[in-house]
């Protein structure tokens, strides 16, 4: 990590110098490109940093793996709140975060924001066929519920003005909570001027369970029968051990 920072620092110093030729408008990198979920994982922060050739705006968009979600709405049935209507959505990013140097609406017009998915309103996910008969506004309520619930779990975040500049160097931190799902996350960095994308850079961040957590999770999902038997054996042994250890004479 340190060496990467150093390389980038050297590079940006060079770029700033008078002899700089054919410099790319945007260079960015992250302090890590993979995150391991181990037993001590409580979420993590990754530093994203870079340099631009001359003043402009920087927008960072991180999208997690796509998932299928069922959104359920509770209604009161004889005094009790229970799930009633549900809508299934396909291809919802499990994680979505945007960081920008200024408010998004000051940086780009809606058409550009829509094209680059800058902001929760521009996320595209499909609604499962059988639920299409719901009225437009009702469907929007379900869609907004995704953004709201994910935001509460820190899985959706729009952080305007969180990309900070020092001259032509910029930095921001990407926050991944403990419940960040496993998978490949795409990280897009856009350099914008005059409402247009001047340059962009894409990289991938991988989040994976590791160590004992990995073993347990894989076994539970790939060998469920064996996992169940192991769980029983562990419990039988632990129970026996407790009885022996605390035998009262």
């Amino acid at each position, binding site marked *: 990590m340190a060496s990467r920072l150093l390389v980038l620092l050297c590079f940006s110093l060079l770029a700033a110098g008078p002899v700089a030729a054919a410099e790319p408008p945007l260079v960015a990198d992250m302090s890590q490109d993979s995150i391991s979920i181990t037993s001590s994982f409580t979420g993590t922060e990754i530093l994203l940093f870079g340099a631009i050739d001359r003043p402009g705006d920087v927008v960072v968009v991180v999208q997690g793996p796509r998932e299928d979600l069922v959104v359920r709405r509770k209604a009161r049935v004889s005094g009790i709140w229970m799930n009633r209507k549900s809508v299934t959505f396909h291809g919802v990013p499990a994680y979505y975060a945007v960081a920008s140097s200024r408010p998004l609406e000051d940086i780009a017009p809606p058409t550009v924001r829509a094209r680059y998915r800058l902001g929760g309103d521009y996320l595209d996910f499909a609604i499962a066929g059988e639920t299409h008969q719901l009225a437009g506004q009702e469907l929007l309520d379900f869609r907004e*519920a995704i953004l709201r619930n994910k935001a509460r779990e820190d899985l959706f975040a729009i952080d305007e003005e969180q990309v900070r500049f020092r001259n032509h160097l910029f930095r921001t931190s990407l926050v991944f909570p403990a419940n960040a799902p496993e998978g490949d996350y795409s990280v897009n960095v856009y350099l914008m001027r005059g409402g247009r994308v001047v340059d962009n850079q894409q990289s991938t961040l991988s989040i994976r369970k590791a160590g004992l957590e990995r073993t347990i999770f894989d076994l539970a999902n790939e060998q469920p*029968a064996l996992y169940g038997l192991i769980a029983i054996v562990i419990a039988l042994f632990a129970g026996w051990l407790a009885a022996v250890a605390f035998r009262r004479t």
Partner: protein
Amino acid sequence: MQIYFPIAELSLNVFLVLGMGGGVGFLSGLFGVGGGFLMTPLLIFIGVPPAVAVATEANQIVAASVSGVIAHWRRNNVDIKMGLILVVGGFAGSTVGSFLFKLLREIGQVDLVISLSFVVFLGVVGTLMVIESVRLMLRSRKGGYRKKAHQHYWAHGLPFKMRFHKSKLYISIIPPILVGFFVGLLAAIMGVGGGFIMIPAMIYLLGMPTSVVVGTSLFQIIFVTANVTFLHSINTQTVDVALAVLLLAGAVIGAQFGARVSSKLRGEQLRALLGAIVLAVCAKLIVDLIFEPSDLFSLGPLVTE
């Protein structure tokens, strides 16, 4: 110190989990009850998904019942024949319950059914405990104590009779199978051993002597909760071994302290206290069901075949 639990997919404080295991273990040692009926709701309260709470708690009860049954085994207080008949019913009940659980999960109603089941059972059991202990307190003040003579139960008239030497019974196997079935159903859906239902049923319905009911019910619970652990592992992948191990580490230690303290306190007051705890958990569940939730919408994974 936080630990990430791979199946529950959340990070919890180790001391909170150990403390919960210890606290519930203390109560179970103090009152001689299983504790599943308190642990499952507590796990749900701290944010563990209800399906994971149920399956994981079933796994933990296997361990708790093994250490319990060993103590009763040494005192020769287990009716194995009756236990095995109860296991037959329990296996059928927990298998049906596990598939019912899976079905409820697919239609998004499993959380509601778990909560409602707990409200009903905690409400009934807690109320009975409080009433019973108040009656006992009043009676002990009067100083009187009466004992019922041997009764002839309706269960004695059914076919498929079998002799149970240890319980000194010659009864039809249908009632114990039905009791086992019902308790197995509860185990799969609620993550409880079901001793709080089975023990009264054994005494009042089957007419078993009180000396063998606890050991025999623990014997049945081992097999039934092991079956629940296995079926939930296969059907829903909701058993979190790491969470179960940490809970039972706390529970084992807590139970020892509980057992020691219980010999120094009066039974009826203990029972009233447990009844109050059970009713408090029940009240919290009711509040969560009838008050408008802060967000009417919730997200869930798409569960299909």
